[in-house]
């Protein structure tokens, strides 16, 4: 996984009925966009290190479309 700051990571539910989770990449601690990432969880403002597994999907943040 190669992420950029501002990208969103979605963690798919592991069981039927379990909701997807998501967080925002705020720092990249690996080389060249590689994990681990410092992420922020939703609107809670809480931060943790995140080590993506096979259940994680990356959604790139489109800076141009968002005027950044």
């Amino acid at each position, binding site marked *: 996984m190669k992420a950029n700051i501002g990208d969103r990571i979605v*963690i798919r*539910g*592991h069981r039927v009925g*379990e*909701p997807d*989770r998501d*967080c925002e990449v705020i720092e990249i*601690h690996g080389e060249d966009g590689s994990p*681990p990432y410092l992420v922020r*969880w*939703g609107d*809670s403002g*809480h931060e*943790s*290190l*995140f*080590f*993506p*597994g*096979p*259940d*994680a999907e990356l959604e790139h943040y489109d800076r141009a479309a968002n005027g950044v």
Partner: protein
Amino acid sequence: MRVGSMIRRSGVAIRGGQSIEEAAVIMERAGVGALAVVESGRLVGLVTDRDLVRRGLARGVAPDRPVAALMSTPVVSIDADLDVREAFALFRRTGGRRLPVVRNGAFVGMLTIDDLLINVAGELADLARPVTAEVVFGDHEPAPADSD
């Protein structure tokens, strides 16, 4: 099969100075029951939802206290490049349900008994398929070439 290839879920880690309340919220948001505790990338402990209840809530520990007060340390971990049979042995020896996975001492993910069970169940299903087919549909071994 290497330990690292058996991890099925993303790993989440916090620093020991983050609060107990933060740990609980992150567990809930991330949908995990255990957090690795790391300092400068190095694994220093493990805190589970059970720790938050039994070592924290049940003993009246304030939620703004550092999570390091509740974590298990030192923690048994396994190298990502070891054969998965080493993980089976460690689970048997420690009685735990989760094993932090490290590479060169740095935390890289969490291996759970569920991960291994799912893999073993898949392998058993692969083995059972031809046997089941033979029992249900009979022996379909081709006839010898010289038979009429």
